């Protein structure tokens, strides 16, 4: 009986574990790594909304991350506006920009759209490198505020608060994803992803739904950007706008499984610790090792299992179940759902 409930139990156990993590493992490096895992889960999920569910592969999502970070920082530095409000401001900016970029781009087929996002990403990076009032290449420093008050969105004594905030963001993002998945929007997006022309002929307003997905995705990425700014206390074009960041957002989702809720989270959980530990232990001499492995994994996954780790897991579960069924009723003819041809 308990076995049936296994997935739910596992989920509950996971949630509990996440909640007490900082108490169990207060060691700063570990906590920091975990915060990054959660942050990248958020980013992966955000990317997933447009890249996975809507099927529009974007390699320029760093734009929104960066816009979020810069908006909240500029608002804070110039007008003393609270980073929480700044977060909303950043999301707003991202929504507007994503709509402007997205709307004309949606009619582009997959590859051209992807390249357009790369181009747009690079434009923003160069732009911000050269905008003096936004700090230029130098970047912007956030003032160090002591006191660790929630309203300041800055905690210097312990990183635990950062952890809980990003955990909250993850939960929120997961809920948004879940909502999209289960409602009409998710259904439409799936149709659009599978066959946009058929979807259009069914009366689905393809552009509008892609736009919805795009702006939601952008807003979430931007909020993650604000978090990052408050966490690191420094934003610069090199740290928040690089192509590498866009790539990693896509990577996290692809590895874990696009178009699924758990995929990006799994992807982040695998990718980030590896990246951090590789950097620390192999101290630059084999610095890019984790990316080499990931490049390889992406190639393999694209060929054999585009659904990523999630799909692998599902297949495995499916086969286990089939095997059990087969064991339980060995005399009956093979279940038609196996797809092994006619009998």
């Amino acid at each position, binding site marked *: 009986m308990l076995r049936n409930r296994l997935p739910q139990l596992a989920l509950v156990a996971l949630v509990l574990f996440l909640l007490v993590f900082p108490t169990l493992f207060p060691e700063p490096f570990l906590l920091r790594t975990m915060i990054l895992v959660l942050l990248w889960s958020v980013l992966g999920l955000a990317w997933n909304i447009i890249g996975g569910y809507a099927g529009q592969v974007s390699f320029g999502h760093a734009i929104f991350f960066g816009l979020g970070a810069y908006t909240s920082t500029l608002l804070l530095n110039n007008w003393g506006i609270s980073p929480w409000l700044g977060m909303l401001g950043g999301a707003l900016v991202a929504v507007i920009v994503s709509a402007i970029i997205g709307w004309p781009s949606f009619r582009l087929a997959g590859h051209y759209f992807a390249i357009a996002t790369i181009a747009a990403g690079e434009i923003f990076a160069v732009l911000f490198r050269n905008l003096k009032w936004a700090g230029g290449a130098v970047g912007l420093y956030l003032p160090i505020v002591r006191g660790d008050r929630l309203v300041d969105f800055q905690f210097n004594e312990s990183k635990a608060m950062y952890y809980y905030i990003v955990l909250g963001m993850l939960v929120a993002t997961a809920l948004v994803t879940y909502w999209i998945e289960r409602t009409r929007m998710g259904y439409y997006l799936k149709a659009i992803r599978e066959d946009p022309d058929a979807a259009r002929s069914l009366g689905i307003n393809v552009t509008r739904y892609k736009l919805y997905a795009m702006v939601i995705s952008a807003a979430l990425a931007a909020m993650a950007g604000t978090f990052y700014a408050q966490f690191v206390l420094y934003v610069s074009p090199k740290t928040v706008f690089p192509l590498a960041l866009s790539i990693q957002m896509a990577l996290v989702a692809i590895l874990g499984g696009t178009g699924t809720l758990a995929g990006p989270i799994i992807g982040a959980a695998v990718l980030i610790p590896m990246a951090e530990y590789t*950097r620390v232990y192999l101290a630059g001499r084999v610095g890019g090792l984790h990316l080499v492995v990931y490049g390889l994994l992406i190639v393999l996954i694209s060929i054999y299992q585009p659904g990523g780790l999630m799909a692998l897991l599902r*297949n495995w579960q499916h086969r286990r179940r089939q095997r059990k069924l087969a064991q339980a009723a060995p005399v009956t003819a093979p279940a038609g759902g196996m797809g092994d041809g006619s009998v």
Partner: protein
Amino acid sequence: MIRRSKLLFTVVSLAVVLAVMVAGCAAPAAPGPAPSAQEETAAQAPAGSEAASEAVNEILVGAIYPLSGSLAATGVDLKNAVELATDIVNNEYDLNLPLAKTAGLPNMGGAKIRLVLGDHEADPEKGAAEAERLINNEKVAALVGSYNSAVTATASQVAEREGVPFLNPESTSPTLTERGFQWFFRTTPYDKLFAENFFQFLDEMKAKGYDVSNVAILNENTLWGTDVATLENQYAEEYGYNVAANIPYEANAADVSSEVQKLKAAGEAVLLQASYVSDAILYMQTYKQLDYAPTAIIAMDAGFVASEFVETLGDDANYILSREVWALDLAESKPIIKAVNDMYKERYGTNMNGNSARAFTGMLVLADAINRAGSTDPAAIQAALMETDIPADQIIMPWKGIRFDPETHQNTLGSGIIVQILDGEYKTVWPFDLASAEIVWPFPKWSER
């Protein structure tokens, strides 16, 4: 399909496991508590058990430098220098340098300094991450580094947040000491001083009868280059020189023909350039190719004094002027420079340069402060640093000494020189009374060499 999935699954899990294993197990001397796998519990006890034996046998100092990445060659120089300084402190040497004649730190029972290295790969974010790791995991008492101004900025920000002293021997961006930080100390003179030096130098050349009225400013557009350009513009106005062109460019360029063309369009001028090594080399090659020969090229150090510069360009590197903080020929007036350089050369195979000399000096200053503090308590070290007063004859730099301004923590006794590359060697040409060679002016045309 089923078989393939199984294959893929196996491959994927193997790859992941392998990668984690490699990451975890390939750790060389990574002492300290950072776990190699996620199964670590909170029960790690690093040097965090400061309780018992504060009778320290060794003092941990973190050094964050670009050990890999585009500036790896420079990073090696810096690392070597810091290691040499550490060795001099830890052992007995008959040199008139702080802590050389004793083994270890006398005020701490002969305790020795152990360096813990961090690699920032010329990336500000990594620099910050390394600072965090060194402070929180390795429990270093202080940090030294990091060459790139942009990285020093973020790494020292972490130190400021954590309340750990950060000594910066080589970054020259003015902003670094204008942040009101309490834990940041800088020994090297900085770009404000150097930029002004340029114009003092040009004034003196004018006085000698050379015709100089225009300058062209070319700079890479990260923190350092941008700051330099701002200062150069400022002093140009103050000293009455006309800025014929202001050309910021994207660092790590692949092609600079547009930029050089713009320089040519600006006409006769003295070029003031701020570039790191790869760009510096590319520009020189492009100058030669497009036949651009300004009245003079005065570089703000960095790429132009890296060992790669002369190595790659050979004779084409000649006649470049650069501000420098140090030159080997200063040994003629300061024998201790020769002594230290000889040691360096014996161990590492090359002469010292402005970067290694400053890193060396910075490390000694830090060690001296820790010794006077008599403890690894950050606040004690900070207080000791504030009181630093090292005389000119105990350092290998052409400075009047080392004393930190109480507010900005900038060394107020530093100064710069200008060198010229002649026959592949850096010769001091200014101040004229320290010069060891006659300056070649103007920059000879490429066809005339």
